[in-house]
């Protein structure tokens, strides 16, 4: 048998035909591969040619980069008024946080970003990472609230801008994820009460828009509290966000759990692993890597959903930016402002998306045949 399979010397490898390689080959294969594609290429090329130069002209060449007043921006033929952004950047980034104390949210944002970027590296995925996160989050809380170590106290009603958005999103992910895991496992439990509770919770939350959950948390929930007891507004919004996201994460994770073959459970069982050891060491690692794309998609959604906290009067990045528009000295530059804000959101969301792709590739290395 082996002689048949491997018999005789191998044929010498040949180069692919020239038409497949080189610049011309690439262009032909990717842009003019048939009538329909050629047509699309021409139309797309035309659209780009007519829009991109004008856009660049407005956004860069004719733009006003620095000015103390809005006068230079209002001159005939002036482009984008980035001077407005430059003038208002602290309001956009930090909202109504006391002006002289704004180094604190800046530092807090820095700490959060370092933690997030650091956690992206798989070499740091161990127990000490959790300690770093705990210490980091405490530092962020101390910086933002103050009231200790000679820092003046700042109520979280004055928090705003990028730090608020980041805190809501990060704390949301950090707490919603484990709750979602538990709900997903609960929904697959053999114990009827646990399964029934998980299913009801997930279906109830998924049947309600986030904005309703937030309003419930801020307006209705306090009505049930005894007189004199009040729970912080930001905390209520945060808990609402966590409970909402947990239900979605649970369903995503459940999809991954179902995709793990039964044989994996049986092998783990036959080795004597307990239920929790089996889930932690065998099932979840496989389930989670299958659901990285939808999970990250959900986190991106969460990051953007934080902006809904406006309904309960909190000023996240987008709402702080809108506050900048109310300055009478700078009327009429909303396009610049929205482009700028969109760019910040885009940077965060696109990085998450890119990271998830890299992670997926990295985790599948070796395990793929």
């Amino acid at each position, binding site marked *: *048998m*082996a002689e048949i399979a491997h018999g005789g010397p191998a044929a010498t490898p040949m180069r692919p035909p020239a038409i497949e390689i080189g610049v011309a080959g690439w262009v032909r294969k990717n842009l003019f591969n048939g009538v329909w594609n050629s047509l699309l290429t021409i139309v797309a090329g035309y659209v780009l040619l007519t829009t991109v130069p004008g856009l660049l002209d407005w956004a860069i060449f004719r733009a006003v980069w620095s000015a103390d007043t809005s006068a230079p921006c209002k001159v005939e033929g002036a482009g984008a008024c980035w001077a407005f952004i430059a003038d208002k950047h602290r309001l956009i980034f930090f909202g109504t946080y006391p002006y002289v104390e704004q180094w604190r949210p800046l530092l807090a944002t820095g700490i959060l970003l370092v933690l997030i970027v650091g956690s992206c590296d798989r070499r740091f995925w161990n127990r000490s990472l959790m300690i770093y996160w705990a210490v980091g989050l405490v530092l962020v809380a101390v910086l933002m609230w103050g009231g200790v170590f000679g820092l003046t106290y700042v109520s979280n009603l004055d928090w705003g801008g990028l730090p608020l958005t980041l805190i809501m999103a990060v704390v949301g992910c950090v707490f919603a994820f484990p709750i979602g895991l538990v709900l997903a496992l609960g929904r697959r439990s053999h114990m009827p009460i646990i399964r029934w509770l998980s299913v009801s919770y997930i279906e109830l939350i998924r049947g309600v828009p986030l904005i309703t959950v937030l309003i419930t948390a801020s307006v209705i929930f306090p009505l049930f509290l005894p007189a004199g007891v009040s729970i912080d507004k930001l905390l209520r919004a945060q808990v609402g966000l966590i409970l909402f996201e947990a239900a979605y994460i649970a369903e995503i994770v459940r999809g991954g759990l179902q995709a793990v*073959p039964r*044989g*994996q459970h*049986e*092998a*783990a*069982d*036959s*080795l*004597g*692993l*307990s239920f929790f*050891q089996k889930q932690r*060491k*065998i099932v979840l*690692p*496989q389930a989670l*890597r299958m659901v990285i794309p939808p999970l990250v998609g959900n986190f991106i959604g969460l990051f953007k959903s934080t902006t809904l906290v406006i309904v309960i009067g909190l000023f996240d990045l987008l709402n702080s930016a809108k506050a900048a528009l109310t300055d009478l000295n700078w009327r009429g530059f909303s396009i610049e402002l929205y482009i700028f804000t969109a760019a910040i959101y885009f940077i965060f969301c696109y990085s998450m998306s890119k990271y998830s792709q890299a992670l997926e590739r990295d*985790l599948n290395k*070796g*395990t*793929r*045949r």
Partner: protein
Amino acid sequence: MTQQSTPVQAQDQAQAPRHEIGREVMIELQQVNKWFGEFHVLKDINLQVRRGERVVVCGPSGSGKSTMIRCINRLEEHQKGHIMVDGVELSNDVKNVEQIRREVGMVFQSFNLFPHLTVLENLTLAPIWVRKVPKREAEQTAMQLLERVKIPEQANKYPGQLSGGQQQRVAIARSLCMKPKIMLFDEPTSALDPEMIKEVLDVMVQLAEDGMTMVCVTHEMGFARTVADTMIFMDMGEIVETAPPVEFFSQPKSDRTRLFLSQILRH
């Protein structure tokens, strides 16, 4: 009869000693019954396996042989009768089940290696987490077992990078890492390409020679003749015939056994 000339047969027939069977009963099934819904898969199964005994179970597909050995470590639950393994009765008590599973190794038709772990991690996971063996010691044992199944050089690869035969040998080593008293094999060679069957059977023969208590569901009759102390033929959820291999192959008592043997030994 072509199985006379299979390599396993030729090489090991003389070396598989059959005198080490102890008196102690390791597995006992009494009047075991099981249904899948309305379907009666196991009917009044009685079976005793003593320490060091090698039992080979054969029978047509759907005869309940896999279900029977899966009941022994409770991957399937039986609904009537008693199953005792190493003196512990299988019941709904999770502690009993986990205790039995620690003592009973199982090898599956589809290997069921953990694809996200390296070969070495596959082997050390259970000893470290279930038996609480220190990591270094678990790794030493794992490497010795990989030597024994002749693939120590694959230790740091992932299962997906190995051939089927290599994966099944890793799976056997993984079970052995738990130092089980009993090994169950559920058609271990059925998913393998023909040229890889021998490398897996060789490992199993070696294991049998070392005195392991084994229950194998298999269609490899050459292997059965070489290592089995007891042959069991199952059909329609019943044990039809139990006999030593010589008798089983030369003078089967039941017509059903005779028919089955003639079908699988014909070519």
